[in-house]
């Protein structure tokens, strides 16, 4: 398989070599471009206004451009009615373009046909123009038309032209090209052709609104094609591009065959921030493997009650109708870590900063520095901060300094600048050494790694680094990973690294995200109240035919790992909430609905009966009416043995609308994740449903995160061309 990134890297150096050695210097096109500009009376760009497309204006320009051309040629006879018709048709397209399909008039198809006919005539007009120009070659520049083409190119990710029209158009353009050899004529034809293409695309969009079925399918197909393309970017170490580990969704499992579901908790939120960056900043749908449903759900604050007993966190269970499959039930496991009542324990922090050349972008090092400053301002004399940088060589730029010496620390942060390549291996050793040298008994000892991606020089197998981090976690120094920027982000490695090192992994794309992670959740990010937290759920086959865990794919544990204290798992910080959702296929009728019959079970086909063993017998507890029993194991931060908590759940058969707001909101977020992942289990969930549920369950929204989620849903809908 070829690697386009490497090809382009190679081509870049080749282009440079051709220029250096071969004299392939860029020609001076200034005069030519300026002459072309002058010929078209383009206004200077001095009145700097934010560059935004006004669709209607474009459509009108398109009309006037066509009409002008037609008039100039005198070969296009239009009756006044046709002009009106024409104008309306294009106006409609513009409305449609803006996304409001309802605005289409009932006789739309007629105007569409007029449009198509006009386009064909337009093509003939272009041909005539071409012939005329070829007699007296002279550069005709039509920047206004060109501008439409620009719009069209910018919408390249959206649903393209209706198929037949596209094929016809292609045939016709290539024909025209075939007989054209003068470059000036080509320029004319290509610009006129681009305008054609823009109109065809607009028509394609109009078709879409008329034939939703056809277009839903086509849009889906295209979406997958594009997503597949994106997936091909950066798949393994050293490959470059953003790297995500493939996620294979959890299937439905039959309770009789697999009564136990075991996984490690995960309080990471990086996936949500990445999805947001794709949707809002990059304007594209995220690759499916960048979407970790549990991290989306856990990004939000939920108002769960804290513990009132001796345990460091509380566990709550709730069940309701599954919003994307009304015959199924949705079960939520909700954990809430104890808030720290008294003073935060002292912290011994070592920032490990990637200052390689690639960090020199506005959304990387400057954001790291801003985030660090926010955090440092929260510190007191009980805390210590050190800064280790790594690039070509690793170095200690700030030896461990008390938090009260703010000026010294802030000054050191200001001095940081990017340059060099990365030697993460050396840096991480130095950082851990610094943390150990100033180890705070009973306090927080943590290395905070800020990077944009890969550790790409030196001793850096992922395995080796992870082992190092794992060892250090046992010695009491935990790791937080903060990811920045896009381009060569090794998501898979960073997640594994933080997971093994009793850490957390967040992705920081904006200053407000930096504030959320480093200030609002500082206690949680820094102060671990329980580690190696594992969840095991035993389902009752009398009540549950099959179940499916939403997300946590890379956190699944074997059933026997649950009681094995040597197997590590996720940590939970002070005040953190953790949410997990199961979709359940009931074994019995509930809420007046019949259970699905066995053939309709979404689970994989049943295996044959065993030859040498008979099936397990139900215990008398199976009649209790309980759906499941939740078992939790955790260790205190400094303990080596785990403590067990258990909670049973009986389903009262409540409807979704009667569920708590947090339950509803989490369900909407999970459904959103399934849609973005292209999950086969998303049932009846659509972005509209997600928006409706999330909007109704939005309050309370102290920091505006839920409102922002609604923005993401809207952006996703736009990008899917919905």
């Amino acid at each position, binding site marked *: 398989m070829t690697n386009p990134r490497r090809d382009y890297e190679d081509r870049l150096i080749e282009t440079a070599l051709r220029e250096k050695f071969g004299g392939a210097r860029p020609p001076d096109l200034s005069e030519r471009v300026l002459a072309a500009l002058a010929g078209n009376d383009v*206004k200077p760009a001095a009145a700097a206004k934010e560059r935004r497309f006004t669709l209607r204006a474009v459509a009108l320009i398109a009309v006037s451009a066509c009409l002008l051309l037609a008039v100039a040629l005198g070969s296009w006879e239009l009756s006044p009615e046709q002009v009106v018709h024409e104008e309306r048709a294009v106006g409609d397209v513009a409305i449609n373009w803006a996304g409001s399909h309802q605005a289409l008039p009932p006789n739309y198809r007629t105007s569409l046909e007029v449009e198509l006919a006009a386009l064909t005539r337009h093509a003939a007009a272009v041909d005539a123009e071409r012939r005329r120009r070829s007699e007296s070659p002279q550069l005709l520049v039509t920047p206004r038309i060109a501008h439409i083409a620009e719009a069209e190119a910018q919408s390249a990710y959206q649903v393209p032209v209706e198929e037949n029209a596209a094929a016809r158009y292609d045939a016709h353009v290539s024909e025209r090209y075939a007989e054209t050899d003068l470059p000036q004529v080509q320029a004319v034809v290509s610009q006129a052709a681009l305008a054609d293409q823009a109109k065809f695309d607009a028509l394609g969009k109009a078709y879409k609104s008329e034939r939703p079925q056809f277009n839903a399918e086509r849009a889906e197909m295209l979406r997958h094609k594009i997503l597949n393309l994106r997936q091909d970017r950066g798949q393994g170490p050293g490959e470059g591009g953003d790297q995500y580990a493939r996620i294979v969704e959890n299937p439905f499992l039959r309770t009789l065959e697999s009564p136990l579901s075991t996984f490690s908790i995960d309080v990471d939120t990086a996936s949500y921030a990445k999805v947001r960056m794709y949707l809002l900043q990059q304007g594209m749908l995220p690759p499916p493997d960048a979407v970790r449903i549990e991290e989306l759900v856990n990004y939000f604050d939920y108002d769960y009650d804290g513990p009132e007993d001796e345990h460091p966190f509380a566990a709550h269970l709730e069940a309701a109708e599954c919003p994307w499959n009304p015959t199924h039930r949705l079960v939520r496991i909700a954990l809430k870590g104890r808030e720290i009542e008294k003073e935060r324990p002292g912290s011994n922090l070592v920032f490990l900063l990637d200052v390689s050349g690639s960090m020199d972008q506005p959304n990387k090092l400057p954001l790291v520095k801003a985030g660090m400053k926010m955090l440092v301002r929260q510190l007191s004399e009980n805390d210590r901060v050190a800064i280790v940088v790594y690039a070509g060589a690793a170095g200690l730029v700030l030896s461990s300094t008390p938090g009260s010496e703010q000026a010294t620390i802030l000054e050191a942060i200001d001095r940081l600048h990017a340059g060099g390549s990365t030697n993460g291996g050396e840096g991480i050793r130095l950082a851990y050494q610094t943390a150990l040298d100033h180890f705070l008994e009973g306090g927080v000892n943590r290395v905070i790694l800020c990077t944009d991606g890969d550790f790409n020089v030196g001793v850096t197998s992922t395995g080796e680094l992870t082992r190092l981090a794992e060892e250090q976690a046992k010695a009491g120094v935990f790791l937080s990973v903060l990811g920045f920027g896009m381009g060569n982000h090794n998501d898979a490695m960073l997640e594994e690294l933080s997971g093994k090192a009793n850490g957390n992994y967040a992705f920081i794309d904006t200053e407000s995200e930096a504030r959320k992670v480093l200030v609002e959740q500082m206690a949680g990010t820094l102060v671990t109240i329980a580690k190696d937290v594992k969840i095991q759920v035993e389902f009752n086959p009398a009540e549950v035919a099959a179940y499916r865990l939403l997300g946590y794919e890379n956190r699944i544990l074997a059933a026997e790992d649950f009681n094995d204290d040597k197997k590590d798992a996720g940590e939970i910080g002070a005040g953190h909430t953790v949410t997990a959702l199961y979709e359940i296929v009931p074994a019995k009728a509930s809420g007046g609905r019949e259970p699905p019959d066995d053939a309709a079970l979404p689970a994989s086909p049943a295996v044959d009966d065993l030859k040498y063993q008979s099936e397990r017998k139900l215990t008398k507890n199976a009649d209790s009416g309980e759906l499941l029993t939740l078992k939790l194991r955790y260790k205190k931060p400094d303990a080596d043995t785990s403590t067990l908590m258990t909670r049973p759940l009986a389903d009262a058969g409540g409807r979704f609308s009667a569920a708590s707001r947090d339950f509803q909101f989490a369900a909407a977020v999970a459904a959103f994740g399934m849609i973005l992942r292209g999950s086969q289990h998303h049932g009846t969930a659509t972005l509209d449903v997600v928006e409706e549920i999330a909007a109704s369950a939005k309050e309370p929204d102290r920091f505006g995160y839920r409102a922002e989620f609604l923005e993401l849903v809207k952006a996703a809908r736009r990008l899917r061309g919905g």
Partner: protein
Amino acid sequence: MSTATIEARLTPAELVRHHQAAVWRYLRYLGCDAAQADDVTQETFLAVLEKPFEQRSEAATAAYLRTVARNRFLALLRREKNGPTAADVAIAEEVWSQAAGAGEDEYLDSLDDCLMELTGRARRAIELRYRDDRSRREIAAELEMTEDGVKTLLRRTRDALRRCVERRVGA
């Protein structure tokens, strides 16, 4: 970054003069031949100057010009079945902006320095290929290597140069 600090807001003429070489170079890098690059460079500036836009910084303007050029390039190639896709071109932009984001002049100057470090057969092969525009077969004959050997040597040398330039640009 070009060494001179440019007043952020340029007149159209200044804008064209200042950025046209880079746009052309970029289009060549994307895969245009020289004539296509000439035409698309012109189209790019016409499209950009058609509407007012905010010139926030030189780098932002350069990036915007690249985006328009890229879209033009894609539109030009849309008919070709095996042409690069939007995803390919997005990767091309990533590579460009990471490597040459600091400015093409710096990139080229660093390449000069790195070329000084080349010796022996690698240097000879690069000179033959890019200065004298010799075919792979001619180079193979001159250096008494197989054609595949020349291909590998050139690719490795370009790789080493690329890493060297990256180090220098980053430093």
